[in-house]
Protein backbone atom coordinates (compact mmCIF):
# COMPACT_ATOMS: atom_id res chain seq x y z
CA UNK A 1 0.00 0.00 0.00
CA UNK A 2 2.64 2.50 -1.08
CA UNK A 3 0.54 5.59 -1.46
CA UNK A 4 2.68 8.46 -2.53
CA UNK A 5 2.58 11.22 0.02
CA UNK A 6 0.51 14.13 -1.21
CA UNK A 7 0.78 17.03 1.20
CA UNK A 8 -2.37 18.57 2.57
CA UNK A 9 -1.94 22.34 2.65
CA UNK A 10 -4.45 24.59 4.37
CA UNK A 11 -4.53 28.19 3.19
CA UNK A 12 -5.99 31.16 5.08
CA UNK A 13 -6.34 33.98 2.62
CA UNK A 14 -7.84 37.39 3.07
CA UNK A 15 -10.81 38.18 0.85
CA UNK A 16 -9.52 41.50 -0.40
CA UNK A 17 -5.98 40.68 -1.47
CA UNK A 18 -4.74 37.13 -1.47
CA UNK A 19 -8.19 35.64 -2.04
CA UNK A 20 -8.68 37.88 -5.07
CA UNK A 21 -5.23 36.90 -6.31
CA UNK A 22 -6.24 33.27 -6.02
CA UNK A 23 -9.38 33.99 -8.07
CA UNK A 24 -7.25 35.78 -10.61
CA UNK A 25 -4.94 32.79 -10.89
CA UNK A 26 -8.00 30.70 -11.50
CA UNK A 27 -9.56 32.85 -14.20
CA UNK A 28 -6.21 33.08 -15.95
CA UNK A 29 -5.98 29.27 -15.82
CA UNK A 30 -2.61 29.41 -14.09
CA UNK A 31 -1.43 25.94 -13.13
CA UNK A 32 -0.43 25.15 -9.59
CA UNK A 33 -0.60 22.02 -7.39
CA UNK A 34 -4.09 21.13 -6.15
CA UNK A 35 -2.92 20.29 -2.63
CA UNK A 36 -4.08 23.54 -1.13
CA UNK A 37 -7.43 23.79 0.63
CA UNK A 38 -8.23 27.52 0.55
CA UNK A 39 -10.15 29.15 3.38
CA UNK A 40 -11.37 32.69 2.84
CA UNK A 41 -11.12 35.06 5.78
CA UNK A 42 -12.06 38.73 5.70
CA UNK A 43 -8.61 39.81 6.84
CA UNK A 44 -5.33 38.10 7.69
CA UNK A 45 -5.67 39.85 11.05
CA UNK A 46 -8.65 37.66 11.89
CA UNK A 47 -6.56 34.52 11.68
CA UNK A 48 -6.28 33.48 15.30
CA UNK A 49 -3.37 31.15 15.99
CA UNK A 50 -5.84 28.55 17.18
CA UNK A 51 -7.09 28.06 13.59
CA UNK A 52 -3.58 27.46 12.37
CA UNK A 53 -2.89 25.15 15.31
CA UNK A 54 -6.11 23.23 14.71
CA UNK A 55 -4.97 22.50 11.18
CA UNK A 56 -1.42 21.75 12.30
CA UNK A 57 -2.43 19.36 15.05
CA UNK A 58 -5.03 17.72 12.84
CA UNK A 59 -2.13 16.70 10.64
CA UNK A 60 -2.06 19.39 7.96
CA UNK A 61 1.35 19.16 6.35
CA UNK A 62 1.57 22.87 5.63
CA UNK A 63 -0.36 26.00 6.46
CA UNK A 64 -0.20 29.11 4.30
CA UNK A 65 -1.44 32.51 5.41
CA UNK A 66 -1.89 35.25 2.84
CA UNK A 67 -2.71 38.90 3.37
CA UNK A 68 -2.40 42.39 1.94
CA UNK A 69 0.97 44.10 1.79
CA UNK A 70 1.85 46.25 4.83
CA UNK A 71 0.13 49.58 4.39
CA UNK A 72 -2.51 48.20 2.02
CA UNK A 73 -4.74 46.32 4.44
CA UNK A 74 -8.38 46.84 3.59
CA UNK A 75 -9.01 47.28 7.31
CA UNK A 76 -5.95 49.52 7.72
CA UNK A 77 -3.88 47.58 10.25
CA UNK A 78 -5.15 43.98 10.30
CA UNK A 79 -2.11 42.64 8.51
CA UNK A 80 0.26 44.31 10.97
CA UNK A 81 -1.51 42.51 13.77
CA UNK A 82 -1.42 39.30 11.78
CA UNK A 83 2.33 39.64 11.43
CA UNK A 84 2.72 39.84 15.21
CA UNK A 85 0.41 36.88 15.79
CA UNK A 86 2.31 34.83 13.23
CA UNK A 87 5.61 35.83 14.83
CA UNK A 88 4.28 34.63 18.17
CA UNK A 89 2.99 31.40 16.67
CA UNK A 90 6.30 30.61 15.02
CA UNK A 91 8.19 31.45 18.19
CA UNK A 92 6.00 29.14 20.26
CA UNK A 93 6.32 26.28 17.78
CA UNK A 94 10.06 26.81 17.64
CA UNK A 95 10.43 26.76 21.42
CA UNK A 96 8.47 23.54 21.58
CA UNK A 97 10.68 21.95 18.95
CA UNK A 98 7.84 21.64 16.46
CA UNK A 99 8.46 22.40 12.78
CA UNK A 100 7.61 26.07 12.48
CA UNK A 101 8.48 26.11 8.78
CA UNK A 102 5.30 24.20 8.06
CA UNK A 103 3.62 27.56 8.67
CA UNK A 104 4.31 30.12 5.96
CA UNK A 105 2.95 33.62 5.55
CA UNK A 106 3.25 35.84 2.52
CA UNK A 107 1.86 39.19 1.43
CA UNK A 108 0.07 38.74 -1.89
CA UNK A 109 -1.99 41.56 -3.29
CA UNK A 110 -5.14 41.29 -5.40
CA UNK A 111 -3.36 41.68 -8.72
CA UNK A 112 -0.59 39.20 -7.98
CA UNK A 113 -2.25 36.09 -9.32
CA UNK A 114 1.04 34.75 -10.57
CA UNK A 115 2.67 35.34 -7.20
CA UNK A 116 -0.11 33.33 -5.60
CA UNK A 117 0.36 30.44 -8.01
CA UNK A 118 4.13 30.58 -7.58
CA UNK A 119 3.83 30.70 -3.79
CA UNK A 120 1.56 27.69 -3.66
CA UNK A 121 3.80 25.78 -6.06
CA UNK A 122 6.92 26.63 -4.07
CA UNK A 123 5.38 25.88 -0.70
CA UNK A 124 3.83 22.61 -1.83
CA UNK A 125 7.20 21.50 -3.16
CA UNK A 126 8.92 22.41 0.12
CA UNK A 127 6.33 20.57 2.15
CA UNK A 128 6.48 17.56 -0.13
CA UNK A 129 10.22 17.41 0.42
CA UNK A 130 9.80 17.77 4.16
CA UNK A 131 7.58 14.77 4.33
CA UNK A 132 4.27 14.33 6.11
CA UNK A 133 3.58 16.10 9.40
CA UNK A 134 4.52 13.57 12.10
CA UNK A 135 1.78 14.96 14.33
CA UNK A 136 -0.67 13.23 12.02
CA UNK A 137 0.28 9.90 13.59
CA UNK A 138 -0.01 10.95 17.25
CA UNK A 139 -3.08 9.60 19.06
CA UNK A 140 -2.63 11.54 22.30
CA UNK A 141 -3.15 14.88 20.70
Amino acid at each position, binding site marked *: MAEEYEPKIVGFMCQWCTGTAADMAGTARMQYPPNIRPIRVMCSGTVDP*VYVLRAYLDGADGILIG*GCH*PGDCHYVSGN*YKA*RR*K*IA*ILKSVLNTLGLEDDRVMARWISAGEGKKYADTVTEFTKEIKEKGPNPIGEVRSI
Partner: protein
Amino acid sequence: MAKRAILEVSEGQAEVALRAFLKQLLDNNVVEALLVPQVVEGGKNVAQGLVTAGDSLDRADPLAPVMPVNSARIVSAMTKKSPPSRKMAIVLRPCELRALVELVKLKQASLENIVTIGVDCFGTYSMNKYAEKAASSSSATQEFLNKASEGNGDADLRMVCQICEYPVPLTSDLTIGLVGLDANKGILVEANTPAGEEALEKLGLGGGDELAQKREAAVSRLLADRRKKAEEFLEQTRKEVSGLDKLVSIFSTCITCHNCRTACPICYCKECFFDSPTFEMEADKYLRQADKRGAIKMPTDTLLFHITRMNHMGVSCVGCGSCEEACPNDIPVAKLFRLVGADLQKLFEYVPGRSLDDELPLTTFREEELTQVVED
Protein backbone atom coordinates in the same frame (compact mmCIF):
# COMPACT_ATOMS: atom_id res chain seq x y z
CA MET B 1 8.78 64.19 51.50
CA ALA B 2 9.96 61.03 53.23
CA LYS B 3 11.58 58.70 50.71
CA ARG B 4 11.94 55.79 53.07
CA ALA B 5 11.60 54.60 56.64
CA ILE B 6 12.78 51.92 59.05
CA LEU B 7 10.37 49.74 60.95
CA GLU B 8 11.92 48.74 64.25
CA VAL B 9 11.75 45.02 64.91
CA SER B 10 11.95 43.74 68.47
CA GLU B 11 12.60 40.16 69.59
CA GLY B 12 13.11 39.09 65.98
CA GLN B 13 9.40 39.31 65.19
CA ALA B 14 9.29 40.85 61.77
CA GLU B 15 5.62 40.11 61.24
CA VAL B 16 4.72 42.02 64.43
CA ALA B 17 6.54 45.09 63.13
CA LEU B 18 4.77 44.84 59.80
CA ARG B 19 1.39 44.43 61.45
CA ALA B 20 2.03 47.57 63.45
CA PHE B 21 2.96 49.47 60.29
CA LEU B 22 -0.14 48.29 58.46
CA LYS B 23 -2.31 49.14 61.47
CA GLN B 24 -0.83 52.63 61.41
CA LEU B 25 -1.95 53.00 57.81
CA LEU B 26 -5.52 52.31 58.92
CA ASP B 27 -5.39 54.26 62.18
CA ASN B 28 -3.98 57.35 60.47
CA ASN B 29 -6.51 57.15 57.68
CA VAL B 30 -3.89 56.73 54.98
CA VAL B 31 -6.14 53.95 53.72
CA GLU B 32 -9.44 52.53 54.93
CA ALA B 33 -8.94 48.92 53.94
CA LEU B 34 -6.10 46.50 53.40
CA LEU B 35 -5.59 43.38 51.34
CA VAL B 36 -2.87 41.53 53.22
CA PRO B 37 -1.99 37.85 53.63
CA GLN B 38 -3.34 36.40 56.87
CA VAL B 39 -2.80 33.12 58.67
CA VAL B 40 -6.05 31.24 58.24
CA GLU B 41 -7.80 29.58 61.16
CA GLY B 42 -5.96 26.35 61.92
CA GLY B 43 -2.62 27.67 60.74
CA LYS B 44 -2.11 25.42 57.71
CA ASN B 45 -2.26 28.20 55.19
CA VAL B 46 -1.77 31.91 54.70
CA ALA B 47 -4.29 33.47 52.34
CA GLN B 48 -5.04 37.03 51.31
CA GLY B 49 -7.39 38.76 53.69
CA LEU B 50 -9.47 41.87 53.11
CA VAL B 51 -9.26 43.86 56.33
CA THR B 52 -11.36 46.87 57.22
CA ALA B 53 -10.80 46.97 60.97
CA GLY B 54 -7.42 47.78 62.49
CA ASP B 55 -8.05 45.30 65.29
CA SER B 56 -8.32 42.49 62.78
CA LEU B 57 -4.72 42.63 61.67
CA ASP B 58 -3.63 40.24 64.42
CA ARG B 59 -3.07 37.41 61.94
CA ALA B 60 -1.47 39.38 59.12
CA ASP B 61 1.70 37.64 57.90
CA PRO B 62 2.76 39.05 54.53
CA LEU B 63 6.19 37.45 54.83
CA ALA B 64 4.87 33.88 55.06
CA PRO B 65 6.49 31.91 52.23
CA VAL B 66 3.36 30.66 50.52
CA MET B 67 1.15 31.97 47.73
CA PRO B 68 -2.06 29.96 47.38
CA VAL B 69 -3.51 32.23 44.70
CA ASN B 70 -1.88 34.91 42.60
CA SER B 71 -3.36 38.01 44.23
CA ALA B 72 -3.72 39.72 40.85
CA ARG B 73 -6.77 37.51 40.32
CA ILE B 74 -8.22 38.69 43.62
CA VAL B 75 -7.66 42.37 42.87
CA SER B 76 -9.08 41.90 39.38
CA ALA B 77 -12.18 40.20 40.75
CA MET B 78 -12.64 43.12 43.17
CA THR B 79 -11.93 46.05 40.88
CA LYS B 80 -13.02 44.90 37.44
CA LYS B 81 -16.54 46.25 37.73
CA SER B 82 -15.62 49.39 39.61
CA PRO B 83 -12.80 50.69 41.77
CA PRO B 84 -13.26 50.73 45.56
CA SER B 85 -14.89 53.84 46.96
CA ARG B 86 -12.67 53.55 50.02
CA LYS B 87 -8.92 53.99 49.62
CA MET B 88 -7.26 50.62 49.88
CA ALA B 89 -3.73 49.28 50.23
CA ILE B 90 -2.78 45.92 48.75
CA VAL B 91 0.22 43.93 49.90
CA LEU B 92 1.59 41.83 47.04
CA ARG B 93 4.56 39.77 45.93
CA PRO B 94 6.49 41.07 42.91
CA CYS B 95 5.01 38.45 40.56
CA GLU B 96 1.50 39.25 41.78
CA LEU B 97 2.11 42.94 41.19
CA ARG B 98 3.52 42.30 37.72
CA ALA B 99 0.48 40.17 36.85
CA LEU B 100 -1.76 42.91 38.17
CA VAL B 101 -0.07 45.53 36.00
CA GLU B 102 -0.70 43.28 32.99
CA LEU B 103 -4.36 42.90 33.99
CA VAL B 104 -4.73 46.67 34.34
CA LYS B 105 -3.34 47.07 30.82
CA LEU B 106 -5.81 44.40 29.68
CA LYS B 107 -8.58 46.45 31.32
CA GLN B 108 -9.38 43.63 33.73
CA ALA B 109 -8.43 45.47 36.93
CA SER B 110 -8.12 48.98 38.24
CA LEU B 111 -5.54 50.62 40.48
CA GLU B 112 -7.73 53.63 41.17
CA ASN B 113 -7.91 54.46 44.87
CA ILE B 114 -5.35 51.75 45.58
CA VAL B 115 -1.93 52.04 47.18
CA THR B 116 0.32 49.15 46.18
CA ILE B 117 2.74 47.74 48.73
CA GLY B 118 5.18 45.30 47.17
CA VAL B 119 7.24 42.98 49.33
CA ASP B 120 10.75 41.75 48.48
CA CYS B 121 10.30 38.06 47.86
CA PHE B 122 12.76 35.28 48.57
CA GLY B 123 10.38 32.70 47.22
CA THR B 124 7.54 30.48 48.35
CA TYR B 125 6.88 26.85 49.13
CA SER B 126 4.10 24.76 47.62
CA MET B 127 1.03 24.83 49.80
CA ASN B 128 1.56 21.29 51.04
CA LYS B 129 5.19 21.93 51.80
CA TYR B 130 4.26 25.11 53.65
CA ALA B 131 1.63 23.28 55.70
CA GLU B 132 4.30 20.70 56.59
CA LYS B 133 6.68 23.42 57.73
CA ALA B 134 3.98 25.29 59.60
CA ALA B 135 3.04 22.13 61.45
CA SER B 136 6.57 21.32 62.53
CA SER B 137 7.72 24.75 63.69
CA SER B 138 6.52 27.62 65.86
CA SER B 139 7.18 30.12 63.11
CA ALA B 140 7.64 28.88 59.58
CA THR B 141 8.01 32.51 58.47
CA GLN B 142 10.82 33.11 60.92
CA GLU B 143 12.73 30.02 59.89
CA PHE B 144 12.25 30.89 56.25
CA LEU B 145 13.60 34.43 56.76
CA ASN B 146 16.61 33.12 58.65
CA LYS B 147 17.36 30.68 55.86
CA ALA B 148 16.92 33.41 53.25
CA SER B 149 19.33 35.75 54.99
CA GLU B 150 21.96 32.99 55.18
CA GLY B 151 21.96 33.17 51.40
CA ASN B 152 22.67 29.52 50.70
CA GLY B 153 19.48 28.92 48.79
CA ASP B 154 16.59 26.72 49.79
CA ALA B 155 15.98 23.60 47.74
CA ASP B 156 12.47 23.30 49.18
CA LEU B 157 11.34 26.47 47.46
CA ARG B 158 9.27 26.17 44.30
CA MET B 159 11.43 25.95 41.22
CA VAL B 160 9.86 29.01 39.57
CA CYS B 161 10.83 31.02 42.66
CA GLN B 162 14.42 29.80 42.62
CA ILE B 163 14.82 31.12 39.07
CA CYS B 164 12.66 34.23 39.42
CA GLU B 165 14.43 37.17 37.77
CA TYR B 166 12.22 39.83 39.36
CA PRO B 167 12.19 39.16 43.11
CA VAL B 168 11.78 42.82 44.03
CA PRO B 169 8.72 44.97 43.24
CA LEU B 170 9.02 47.11 40.10
CA THR B 171 6.04 49.46 40.23
CA SER B 172 4.78 49.58 43.81
CA ASP B 173 4.01 52.80 45.68
CA LEU B 174 5.76 51.34 48.69
CA THR B 175 8.27 48.50 48.94
CA ILE B 176 8.88 46.39 52.02
CA GLY B 177 12.64 45.97 51.64
CA LEU B 178 14.21 42.77 52.92
CA VAL B 179 17.00 41.84 50.50
CA GLY B 180 20.45 42.24 52.04
CA LEU B 181 19.02 43.22 55.40
CA ASP B 182 18.41 41.41 58.66
CA ALA B 183 14.64 41.37 59.10
CA ASN B 184 15.13 40.48 62.75
CA LYS B 185 16.63 43.90 63.39
CA GLY B 186 14.75 46.24 61.10
CA ILE B 187 12.64 46.39 57.98
CA LEU B 188 13.08 49.01 55.30
CA VAL B 189 10.07 50.67 53.71
CA GLU B 190 10.86 52.44 50.45
CA ALA B 191 8.55 54.96 48.81
CA ASN B 192 8.78 54.71 45.01
CA THR B 193 6.05 57.14 44.02
CA PRO B 194 4.51 60.37 45.34
CA ALA B 195 1.64 58.32 46.76
CA GLY B 196 4.12 56.21 48.67
CA GLU B 197 5.97 59.26 49.97
CA GLU B 198 2.70 60.80 51.08
CA ALA B 199 1.86 57.69 53.07
CA LEU B 200 5.18 57.72 54.93
CA GLU B 201 4.83 61.44 55.55
CA LYS B 202 1.40 60.94 57.09
CA LEU B 203 2.81 58.31 59.44
CA GLY B 204 5.72 60.54 60.37
CA LEU B 205 8.24 57.83 59.56
CA GLY B 206 11.78 58.28 58.33
CA GLY B 207 15.36 57.12 58.33
CA GLY B 208 16.83 54.16 56.50
CA ASP B 209 19.19 55.78 53.96
CA GLU B 210 22.07 53.50 54.93
CA LEU B 211 19.91 50.42 54.86
CA ALA B 212 18.60 51.46 51.45
CA GLN B 213 22.11 51.53 50.03
CA LYS B 214 22.87 48.15 51.56
CA ARG B 215 19.69 46.75 50.04
CA GLU B 216 20.39 48.25 46.61
CA ALA B 217 23.78 46.57 46.45
CA ALA B 218 22.34 43.26 47.60
CA VAL B 219 19.51 43.50 45.06
CA SER B 220 22.01 43.94 42.21
CA ARG B 221 23.85 40.82 43.32
CA LEU B 222 20.61 38.88 43.69
CA LEU B 223 19.36 39.88 40.25
CA ALA B 224 22.63 38.88 38.60
CA ASP B 225 22.54 35.54 40.39
CA ARG B 226 18.94 34.86 39.44
CA ARG B 227 19.48 35.82 35.82
CA LYS B 228 22.25 33.27 35.58
CA LYS B 229 20.16 30.58 37.29
CA ALA B 230 17.20 31.32 35.03
CA GLU B 231 19.31 31.11 31.89
CA GLU B 232 20.78 27.76 32.92
CA PHE B 233 17.45 26.36 33.97
CA LEU B 234 15.65 27.47 30.82
CA GLU B 235 18.33 25.99 28.58
CA GLN B 236 18.08 22.72 30.47
CA THR B 237 14.29 22.87 30.17
CA ARG B 238 14.54 23.48 26.46
CA LYS B 239 16.41 20.20 26.04
CA GLU B 240 13.90 18.35 28.18
CA VAL B 241 10.74 19.53 26.45
CA SER B 242 11.72 20.23 22.89
CA GLY B 243 10.36 17.93 20.23
CA LEU B 244 7.07 16.25 19.46
CA ASP B 245 7.77 13.05 21.40
CA LYS B 246 8.76 14.86 24.57
CA LEU B 247 5.82 17.21 24.29
CA VAL B 248 3.33 14.41 23.87
CA SER B 249 4.87 12.56 26.78
CA ILE B 250 4.73 15.58 29.09
CA PHE B 251 1.05 16.13 28.37
CA SER B 252 0.08 12.48 28.31
CA THR B 253 -1.16 12.77 31.90
CA CYS B 254 -3.14 15.93 31.20
CA ILE B 255 -6.84 15.43 31.80
CA THR B 256 -7.80 18.83 30.32
CA CYS B 257 -9.37 19.96 33.57
CA HIS B 258 -8.19 23.49 32.69
CA ASN B 259 -7.16 24.15 36.27
CA CYS B 260 -3.94 25.71 35.02
CA ARG B 261 -5.98 28.22 33.08
CA THR B 262 -8.25 28.93 36.05
CA ALA B 263 -5.29 29.53 38.34
CA CYS B 264 -3.41 31.68 35.83
CA PRO B 265 -3.72 35.35 36.74
CA ILE B 266 -3.41 36.42 33.11
CA CYS B 267 -6.08 34.16 31.58
CA TYR B 268 -9.12 36.35 32.00
CA CYS B 269 -11.50 35.47 29.15
CA LYS B 270 -15.03 35.24 30.46
CA GLU B 271 -15.65 32.44 28.03
CA CYS B 272 -12.49 30.66 27.07
CA PHE B 273 -12.52 29.52 23.47
CA PHE B 274 -12.17 25.99 24.73
CA ASP B 275 -15.41 26.29 26.69
CA SER B 276 -17.28 27.76 23.74
CA PRO B 277 -19.78 25.96 21.49
CA THR B 278 -16.93 25.28 19.07
CA PHE B 279 -15.96 22.38 21.27
CA GLU B 280 -19.48 21.08 21.81
CA MET B 281 -18.96 18.59 19.05
CA GLU B 282 -21.35 15.99 17.73
CA ALA B 283 -20.42 12.37 18.22
CA ASP B 284 -19.80 11.94 14.51
CA LYS B 285 -17.27 14.73 14.52
CA TYR B 286 -15.30 12.88 17.16
CA LEU B 287 -15.56 9.73 15.09
CA ARG B 288 -14.21 11.55 12.05
CA GLN B 289 -11.31 12.80 14.18
CA ALA B 290 -10.62 9.24 15.21
CA ASP B 291 -10.78 8.14 11.57
CA LYS B 292 -7.85 10.39 10.72
CA ARG B 293 -5.50 8.47 12.96
CA GLY B 294 -7.22 5.20 13.63
CA ALA B 295 -7.55 6.08 17.29
CA ILE B 296 -7.49 9.23 19.41
CA LYS B 297 -7.04 9.75 23.13
CA MET B 298 -10.17 11.03 24.81
CA PRO B 299 -10.62 13.73 25.88
CA THR B 300 -8.87 15.09 22.82
CA ASP B 301 -7.48 18.52 21.85
CA THR B 302 -5.12 18.55 24.83
CA LEU B 303 -2.09 19.89 22.98
CA LEU B 304 -4.32 22.33 21.11
CA PHE B 305 -5.45 23.79 24.43
CA HIS B 306 -1.97 24.25 25.84
CA ILE B 307 -0.29 25.55 22.70
CA THR B 308 -3.18 27.95 22.05
CA ARG B 309 -2.96 29.19 25.62
CA MET B 310 0.75 29.79 25.11
CA ASN B 311 -0.06 31.85 22.03
CA HIS B 312 -2.80 33.82 23.73
CA MET B 313 -1.12 34.70 27.05
CA GLY B 314 2.56 33.79 26.71
CA VAL B 315 3.74 37.36 26.19
CA SER B 316 2.29 38.32 29.57
CA CYS B 317 3.41 35.25 31.52
CA VAL B 318 5.05 36.46 34.73
CA GLY B 319 6.33 33.03 35.73
CA CYS B 320 4.41 32.85 39.00
CA GLY B 321 3.89 29.11 38.64
CA SER B 322 0.27 29.12 39.77
CA CYS B 323 -0.52 26.88 36.83
CA GLU B 324 1.76 24.11 38.00
CA GLU B 325 0.58 24.40 41.59
CA ALA B 326 -2.98 23.91 40.37
CA CYS B 327 -2.27 20.90 38.18
CA PRO B 328 -3.66 17.78 39.81
CA ASN B 329 -1.12 15.62 38.00
CA ASP B 330 2.00 17.72 38.57
CA ILE B 331 2.61 18.37 34.90
CA PRO B 332 5.52 20.82 34.61
CA VAL B 333 3.41 23.50 32.88
CA ALA B 334 5.09 26.33 34.73
CA LYS B 335 8.51 25.65 33.37
CA LEU B 336 7.13 25.03 29.91
CA PHE B 337 5.13 28.25 29.82
CA ARG B 338 8.03 30.13 31.42
CA LEU B 339 10.33 28.96 28.63
CA VAL B 340 7.83 29.83 25.91
CA GLY B 341 7.12 33.16 27.60
CA ALA B 342 10.82 33.98 27.88
CA ASP B 343 11.35 33.44 24.13
CA LEU B 344 8.29 35.55 23.24
CA GLN B 345 9.26 38.33 25.63
CA LYS B 346 12.76 38.39 24.19
CA LEU B 347 11.29 38.69 20.69
CA PHE B 348 9.43 41.85 21.68
CA GLU B 349 11.90 43.03 24.34
CA TYR B 350 8.97 43.01 26.68
CA VAL B 351 8.93 42.50 30.42
CA PRO B 352 5.39 41.80 31.60
CA GLY B 353 4.49 44.04 34.50
CA ARG B 354 7.52 46.27 34.18
CA SER B 355 5.43 49.36 33.59
CA LEU B 356 1.89 50.52 32.91
CA ASP B 357 3.34 52.53 30.03
CA ASP B 358 4.69 49.49 28.17
CA GLU B 359 2.28 48.57 25.40
CA LEU B 360 1.07 44.98 25.28
CA PRO B 361 2.79 43.31 22.29
CA LEU B 362 -0.50 42.00 20.89
CA THR B 363 -2.24 45.38 20.92
CA THR B 364 0.32 47.32 18.96
CA PHE B 365 2.66 47.06 16.02
CA ARG B 366 5.39 48.86 14.10
CA GLU B 367 5.08 49.44 10.40
CA GLU B 368 8.54 48.04 9.85
CA GLU B 369 9.28 44.95 11.90
CA LEU B 370 9.51 41.17 11.94
CA THR B 371 10.43 41.02 8.28
CA GLN B 372 11.77 37.52 8.79
CA VAL B 373 8.31 36.27 9.70
CA VAL B 374 6.37 37.16 6.59
CA GLU B 375 8.00 37.14 3.19
CA ASP B 376 7.09 39.96 0.94
